[in-house]
């Protein structure tokens, strides 16, 4: 379950060591934008040691490496892959070739280290107009790609427009990302809401992202984690309905019915799939019960 993903700057020990208590389902240890060029070496070694020796509890660890147009990304992977991160986030991913470049180097490292093939997944960060247009190709470029991630700040710069709280300027990109990810069968995560002092705005922004089909949303401040978790968790009403769907299917099967209806509506395969996802999430959140 990955509702919230919290960016943490890679060169700040006091923040990284508190990662597991900040409430996010995943943390993104950042070696890219949050680290000054002169401190890339320092952050890389710190993140490597943190992953090796610190506990992150139930929090999933993702590492954002530097982009493939820099001299840093291979060194980042050399240090991080042996620590078996759940996912690597390559930034500024614009084409399927970009994914394949990172994939090939991770494969080399996995083989050298005697690791299981494809042990480490990818969550490409798409933050350019070209990346958005290539979103499906990126999402289906490698078996490693488990999700794609929209970066709204760099994207608006590339689009030559201003980033606003309402986000109209990225609405096309958001919809396109969701469609591309679902077509490729991977998850999709929304850009952070960057006004860290706006405790209302984060709810609106997260609800909008959820309504479009995003799996979850990222944050640059721990203040936004609670709102994101709330919005992307199933409500008790959703959970009750999911159990009703599964019960109706069970009874229908017992009675040998080909088609099953609930509250006057036909229950088809997508409704059952959604009900199963809701129940799985409810169980993980401790809100589930015996079906």
């Amino acid at each position, binding site marked *: 379950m990955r509702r919230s993903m919290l960016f943490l700057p890679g060169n700040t020990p*006091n923040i990284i060591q508190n990662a597991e208590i900040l409430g996010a389902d995943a943390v993104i240890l950042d070696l890219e934008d949050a680290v000054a060029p002169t401190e890339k070496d320092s952050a890389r*070694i*710190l993140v490597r*040691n*943190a992953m090796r020796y*610190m506990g992150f509890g139930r929090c999933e660890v993702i590492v954002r490496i530097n982009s493939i147009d820099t001299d840093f990304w291979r060194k980042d992977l050399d240090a991080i892959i042996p620590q078996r991160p759940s996912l690597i986030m390559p930034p500024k991913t614009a084409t399927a070739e970009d994914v394949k470049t990172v994939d090939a180097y991770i494969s080399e490292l996995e083989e050298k280290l005697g690791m299981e093939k494809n042990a480490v997944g990818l969550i490409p960060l798409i933050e350019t107009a070209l990346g958005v247009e290539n979103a499906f190709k990126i999402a289906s470029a490698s078996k490693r790609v488990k999700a794609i991630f929209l970066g709204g700040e760099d994207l608006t710069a590339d689009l030559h427009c201003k980033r606003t709280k309402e986000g109209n300027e990225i609405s096309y990109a958001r919809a396109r990302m969701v469609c591309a990810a679902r077509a490729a069968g991977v998850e999709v995560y929304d850009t952070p809401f960057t006004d860290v002092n706006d405790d209302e705005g984060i709810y609106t922004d997260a609800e909008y992202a959820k309504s479009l089909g995003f799996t979850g949303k990222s944050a640059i401040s721990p203040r936004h984690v609670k709102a994101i978790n709330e919005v992307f968790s199933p409500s008790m009403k959703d959970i009750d309905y999911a159990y009703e769907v599964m019960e109706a299917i069970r009874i229908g099967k017992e009675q040998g019915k080909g088609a099953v209806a609930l509250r006057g509506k036909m229950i088809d395969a997508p409704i059952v799939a959604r009900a199963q996802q809701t129940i799985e999430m409810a169980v993980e959140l401790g809100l589930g019960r015996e079906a």
Partner: protein
Amino acid sequence: MSKIIRRATAGTLESSDVFVTLEPHDSGVEIELDSVVRNQFGPAILKAVEEVLAECGVNSAKVIVVDRGALDCVIRARVETAVERGKGE
């Protein structure tokens, strides 16, 4: 074997971090430690510094460690970074 050929620093003076300065030294390793938790963890900090220097093949250096309550793995990271920055080819 790595030789420290230039002064190098790593880390910060922020809470939970450590600021490490490494300088060329003629004979052996000399460590100066300033730490808010020196009484409780001084020997452990010195051990971590010495171990990293040994792992990096550094057998002569002056090391100034200003600790702000850093975890062991942070101290090790900062010393390693300072060595990488200060060593010759």
